[in-house]
């Protein structure tokens, strides 16, 4: 199995600040990988080191087996990065921007693929407009197209949906998912956790430059998040001995957390026994936001 990204004890110091304090992780080829963490956790720093924009103070990083320093030409060819900041060159049009980006990779006859990108990202009507005249969301699309001009096997997206409307988000994820199905490795950072939960096979969580969780999305959900049960009863009290944790209550409304769906049976049984009857019932599946908050609270 080839590793798309391999980071070994990566450290980055900015003066006294340790932006990364020894991070090791591996992303397998073909994975859809999520990199999560609060503001300032070091996500962008890690991505920048993978991309060769920032030099690690210690540690090694490889992209598709190529060291990002010693074999930088091969490593960079393998990687497409959508930067977090909305950057653009105000001198050029969308098409010029994409042609230049392609040319920087030594690809000078790439118009067919550029056209395809422009079309898939819904930029056709703006292809000859100056970058300055594009809206924020449109500029974001161009950034995505720029990252893909050289058809990199590994694609890193640093908060690609920040400030992007629902429609583009759908378009974007559809496109990224297709690339993933076609074998591209995707690494994504986002603060929209439902997005990460839906898309990512595996997730790493960073906090203050340290890796605090690294597992499949499914395992994380199992380990850190239960099923939330919302009840409205005809009683203002819950029976004793429920196999659940009371999270909140408001008069006859109760919010309980169950370990798993199996615990539901015991809860319903106890309610029936105590003579309480249910007026409303709602179940919420485990969610990544809960996992995230718990993991962050523990570290």
């Amino acid at each position, binding site marked *: 199995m080839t590793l798309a990204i391999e980071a070994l004890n990566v450290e980055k110091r900015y003066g006294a600040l340790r932006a990364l304090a020894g991070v090791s992780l591996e992303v397998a080829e073909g994975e859809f990988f999520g990199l999560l963490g609060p503001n300032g956790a070091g996500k962008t720093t890690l991505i920048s080191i993978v*991309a*060769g*924009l*920032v*030099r690690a103070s210690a540690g090694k990083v490889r992209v598709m087996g190529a060291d990002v320093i010693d074999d*930088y*030409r*091969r490593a*960079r*060819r393998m*990687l497409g*990065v959508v*930067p977090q*900041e909305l*950057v*653009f*060159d*105000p*001198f*050029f049009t969308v098409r*010029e921007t994409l*042609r*230049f*980006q*392609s*040319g*920087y*990779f*030594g690809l*000078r006859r790439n118009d067919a693929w550029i056209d395809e990108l422009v079309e898939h990202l819904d930029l056709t009507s703006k292809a000859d407009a100056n970058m300055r005249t594009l809206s924020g969301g449109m500029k974001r699309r161009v950034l995505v197209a*720029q990252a893909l001009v*050289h058809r990199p096997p590994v694609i890193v997206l640093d908060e690609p949906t920040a400030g992007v409307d629902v429609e583009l988000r759908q378009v974007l994820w559809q496109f990224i998912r297709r690339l993933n199905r076609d074998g591209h490795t995707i690494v994504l950072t986002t603060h929209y956790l439902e997005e990460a939960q839906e898309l990512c096979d595996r997730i790493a969580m960073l906090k203050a430059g340290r890796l605090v969780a690294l597992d499949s999305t499914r395992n994380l959900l199992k380990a850190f998040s239960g099923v939330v049960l919302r009840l409205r009863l005809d009683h203002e009290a819950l029976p004793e001995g429920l196999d659940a944790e009371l999270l909140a209550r408001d008069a006859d409304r109760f919010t309980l957390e169950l370990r798993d769906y199996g615990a539901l049976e015991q809860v319903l049984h106890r309610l029936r026994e105590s003579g309480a009857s249910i007026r409303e019932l709602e179940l919420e599946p485990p969610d990544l936001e809960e996992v995230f908050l718990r993991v962050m609270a523990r570290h």
Partner: protein
Amino acid sequence: MGSFPTLLYKELLRFWKVAFQTVAAPVMTALLYLLVFAYALEGRVRVYEQVSYAQFLVPGLVMMSVLQNAFANSASSLIQSKVTGNVVFMLLPPIGYVEFFGAYVLASVVRGLAVGAGVLAVTVWFVELQLAAPLWVLGFALIGAAILGTLGLIAGIWADKFDQIAAFQNFVILPLTFLSGVFYSIHSLPGPWQAASKLNPFFYMIDGFRYGFFGTSDFPPFASLAVVGVSLALLSAICLLLLRSGYKLRY
């Protein structure tokens, strides 16, 4: 060789799209210098026999425009990319540092020569010029523009803000060009100032360039060529080392 043609083309297109500001405006400035100085000083200053002051002035103005614009091109292009952040688009692909250097400096040379040619084309309407040794003219223009393009690139790499480039331009480039003998022959200066002028590398660029027009100069042209040649080699080496190390570009 991969990215060089694209990067060069991008740099050329960048200034060409705003040619009114990057080419026409400096030509206008040079023309104003010529009209004002030639009018004020004609007849009062005579540098060489057979050469009027206006004739003497034109090559200096041409070269001054070449140098200043070559510097402005690479410096402003790179600082703009750094400040706006779009420099990442050049840092993400596998662009070699020699290609990067070559593209930026060559584009600066083209801009410098375009402005120089513009100044020459406009001033010949007012002043009759001879061309004693055209190869010297071309040679010094090329090397001078390359030196300033390299210097601009170094300044762009080093600077974090526009004002630092402006300061470099106003406190280093402008004084050195003005005091290099564009408007006078250094032989008209008192001894110590003459000696000081010879420490100014810009003097050799202007003087050598002027030799190409009149066939006479303040300093032997081969010696000037050696000075500017060595300057170019030195600055290029510094610039290439900076680029290779990623200084101020890759943190």
